């Protein structure tokens, strides 16, 4: 169990996909303008990552190595399309606000990266640990970014229409730059710098 836990925990901090590996930055920049969007995107990514890692680990001994990348992409695209159709049917609000970034999970480097670098070389249980760890690490990272952007950009933070807290001063004069793409770059850059300064991320 020690090894399983080690593979699980590495995605959260030491190999965090966003802050350390710098994979999957596109959704991290694009859908972190609100906490709801970030959580919706995380749920979709965790599902796809888990399913693709499980399947890739299961077929890893049979897959012909010259076609492994197309096989992985087909597997990932299948799960993404299934998620996308499900969201469209049952979560139309989230589907609308995630927009193009939902189908774009297909090209999220985290998922293909983990399939190729981890799941195709490790047994099923470890691949599950890797997927959950990386998925939760991604969630942690984009939730942090979304909390900062939504709070500064709109003056309040809400979760599924419940207002968690609000700053009246900021609400009257929100820094709407933080809701725009430029704000996403600023927040990610400052967070990376801060994490490096306190030594959470180490140069390799």
């Amino acid at each position, binding site marked *: 169990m020690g090894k399983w836990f080690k593979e699980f925990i590495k995605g959260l901090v030491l190999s965090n996909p966003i802050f350390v590996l710098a994979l999957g930055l596109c959704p991290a920049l694009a859908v972190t303008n609100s906490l709801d969007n970030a959580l919706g995107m995380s749920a979709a990514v965790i599902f796809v990552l888990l399913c693709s890692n499980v399947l890739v680990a299961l077929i890893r001994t049979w897959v012909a190595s*010259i076609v492994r990348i197309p096989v992985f992409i087909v597997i990932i695209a299948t799960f993404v399309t*299934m998620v996308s159709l499900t969201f469209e049917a049952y979560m*139309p609000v989230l589907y609308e606000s995630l927009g193009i970034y939902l189908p774009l999970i297909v090209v999220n480097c985290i998922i293909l990266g983990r399939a190729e670098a981890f799941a195709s070389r490790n047994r099923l249980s470890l691949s599950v640990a890797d997927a959950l760890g990386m998925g939760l690490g991604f969630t942690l990272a984009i939730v942090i970014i979304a909390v900062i952007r939504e709070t500064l950009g709109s003056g309040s933070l809400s979760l599924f229409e419940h207002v968690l807290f609000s700053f009246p001063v900021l609400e009257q004069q929100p820094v709407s730059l933080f809701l725009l793409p430029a704000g996403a770059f600023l927040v990610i850059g400052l967070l990376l710098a801060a994490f490096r300064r306190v030594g959470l991320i180490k140069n390799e």
Partner: protein
Amino acid sequence: MRFSIIKRFYAIAFLTLVVIISASLLSLTYSLTAEQIKLRQHEQFLGYLGEMFPEMTGFEYNDELYYVYDDALLLGYAFTASKAGYSGDINIMVGLSDKETVKGVLIISQTETPGIGTRILDEPFIGQFAGMNVNDIRLRSEGGQADTITGATVSSKAVIEAISQAAKEKLAGING
């Protein structure tokens, strides 16, 4: 690297198998969600219809035209229009208070460039149609009354042309 014939065939067969399984999984998901997605779109459309005619209690759909009623009183008509904009289709709903007068125009869905083409959603453009004679919704260069948006000509032209084309087709068989 060189691969034996058997290895090549194995690779092809494997990929083909994966694609077949994927396609069947997708068609299964599609058939499971298609009805729900249609229902959602219908609900959304009803929402727009209600926004256009707040007093609406019911409607009839006949020959691509919606007849909107408040009990027995005919409030007006509505039809949908669609045309390719700068990127992707722009879907529009047009409401009429009588056979000729436009009550309002709503954009149901669009994928125009944010900040540029999306100005078709803004009041100065979309609001200009309210009260206009439906036959005047043509470009000024073609003798109409509708203005395009400077810098978003393709998007705004698509909206105007979508409405005038759809009006021509769908209002022809109007009765009552």
